[in-house]
């Protein structure tokens, strides 16, 4: 709870810091703010409390996912050096909007009332619409923002309609009451209304996390959005969406699980297939990463189809390892694309020669995303698959493993370009902070891969 308030206040303070002559203080200030929020967040650990007449509940689930998301933002921001150097006049606003959107993300993982879930989603989404269009003079950025807004509001409408139907059937927005209504469905003739509501909510959330067949916005929007904010979209937004989804299906609609389970499984398989196959044919690295994020949403959805001792931790671990690897990959992309034109694979040619550090960090990130052992990504998938097997979904795991074999192809393409092609340009200049972050992210990935036990029994 304190973290929500603090984030809002810090966001406002940050806006005013933007009036200072030099914008050099902004980045350190935001990092310190986020560090404070990260620490304060853990005050609520093992101390579950309800706030605002049961609107929000801060439990360990909420604290853990909030921590991952705050950490993600803190990891992403060091790569914003080019904004500072170019003296972008809106830098403070960018930082503040991201912090405000984090408030929405935290609400999404701690809701006790589906109205709060809706509010959280909207706070996060509207911030993202703005960030997608933050390069006002760039056509692609504008296009991304407009597409995202139009499609996003469409999905919001569907989501809200779903909530309305659920409210109409169960007579409450409180998740406990909806859960008790949905687990006792024989006593009511309002079941069809409830069921349609559940399906529409499913569709709405699937849109937000970019699951197929509601993923069409993802590649276009990710590609047009400035890289820094794409990173944020594919990490924080996805984490928040999945965590909210997890809570929704297992805390709100558990009674109806026989009803939504087949739909969710179908969506999962479709997402895995479309994400991985779509990624394999891309020529642009950034677009590949967009499809890859769809694929990873698919893996996360596998955990959603199982509910047992492992699944919660598996989602958390996956979110963390995916975030770390994705931030590193996009971080390198940002640094390289700031100085070499384009976002294709060719841009990375010979990076191993000119910038060994960048190439190494990228390789580690790709290995983790492709789930090579000794990186966090391996255990992320291991836990997810383990939880699915435990729930008896063996064939789902078979599909997922087959698809992850496909993923080797496109993840290693960039590795090959970096080490096996002739360099296409000069050495890419990397500032100290970003270099430090890349080293940190790589080490973190290895730590997750070697000591997964440290991260996977929090919940």
């Amino acid at each position: 709870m304190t973290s929500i308030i603090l984030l809002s206040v810090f966001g406002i303070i940050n806006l005013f810091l933007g009036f200072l002559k030099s914008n050099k203080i902004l980045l350190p200030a935001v990092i310190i703010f986020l560090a404070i929020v990260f620490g304060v967040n853990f005050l609520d650990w093992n101390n579950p409390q309800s706030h605002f007449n049961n609107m929000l509940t801060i439990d360990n689930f909420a604290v853990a996912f909030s921590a991952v998301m705050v950490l993600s933002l803190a990891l992403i921001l060091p790569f914003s050096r080019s904004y500072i150097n170019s003296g972008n006049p809106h830098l403070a606003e960018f930082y503040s909007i991201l912090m405000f959107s984090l408030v929405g993300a935290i609400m999404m993982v701690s809701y006790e009332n589906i109205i709060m879930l809706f509010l959280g989603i909207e706070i996060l989404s509207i911030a993202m619409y703005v960030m997608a269009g933050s390069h006002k003079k760039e056509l692609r950025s504008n296009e991304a923002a407009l597409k995202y807004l139009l499609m996003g509001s469409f999905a919001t409408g569907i989501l809200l309609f779903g909530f309305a139907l659920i409210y109409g059937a169960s007579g409450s927005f409180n998740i406990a009451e909806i859960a008790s209504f949905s687990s006792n469905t024989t006593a009511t003739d309002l079941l069809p209304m409830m069921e349609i509501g559940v399906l529409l909510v499913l569709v709405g959330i699937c849109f937000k996390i970019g699951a197929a067949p509601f993923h069409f916005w993802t590649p276009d929007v990710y590609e047009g959005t400035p890289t820094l904010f794409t990173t944020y979209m594919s990490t924080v937004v996805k984490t928040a969406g999945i965590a909210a989804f997890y809570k929704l299906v297992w805390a709100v609609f558990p009674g109806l699980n026989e009803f939504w389970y087949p739909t969710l499984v179908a969506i999962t398989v479709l997402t895995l297939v479309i994400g991985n196959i779509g990624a394999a044919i891309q020529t642009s690295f950034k677009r590949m990463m967009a499809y890859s994020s769809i694929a990873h949403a698919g893996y996360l959805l596998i955990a959603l189809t199982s509910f047992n001792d492992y699944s919660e931790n598996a989602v958390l671990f996956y979110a963390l390892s995916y975030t770390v690897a994705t931030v590193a990959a996009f971080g390198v992309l940002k640094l390289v694309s700031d100085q070499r034109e384009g976002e294709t694979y060719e841009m990375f040619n010979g990076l191993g020669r000119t910038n060994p550090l960048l190439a190494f960090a990228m390789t580690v990130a790709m290995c983790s995303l492709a789930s090579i052992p000794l990186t966090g990504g391996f255990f992320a998938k291991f836990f997810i698959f383990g939880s699915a097997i435990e729930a008896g979904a063996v064939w789902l795991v078979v599909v997922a493993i087959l698809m992850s074999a496909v993923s080797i192809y496109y993840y290693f393409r960039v590795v090959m370009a970096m080490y096996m092609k002739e360099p296409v340009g000069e050495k890419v200049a990397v500032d100290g902070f970003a270099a430090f972050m890349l080293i940190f992210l790589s080490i973190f990935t290895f730590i997750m891969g070697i000591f997964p036990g440290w991260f996977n029994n929090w919940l």
Partner: protein
Amino acid sequence: MEQAIYTPYDYLPIIVQFLAAAGFVAFAMGVTHLIGPKRHSKVKDEAWECGIPTVGNARTPISYKYFMTAILFVIFDIEIIFMYPWAVNFKVLGTEGFLQMITFMGLLMAGFVYVIKKGILKWE
């Protein structure tokens, strides 16, 4: 909680109010149209442009500053909506309500300062 049973009849007052509202508008527009004196001429039928001859299309891009001002107006206008109920229940809400309102107004004020400093309201 008592489960009230509603019949369509219970919604009659709402319908009546709708009709009254729509009727008033229709009535006012119709009457002015009918009883107002009308003198047509070429000059009079032109779009009114402060007496200056009209130039070009009406649908030209308008400076975003208009919109910014309008949006800011709406935001600061809406605050009143929160102040009315507070003012009505001022005594009941007591010190706590007062502090909450101070916080709210403080945030709003911060926003106002931000807007001013950012130069949104500067026309040039």
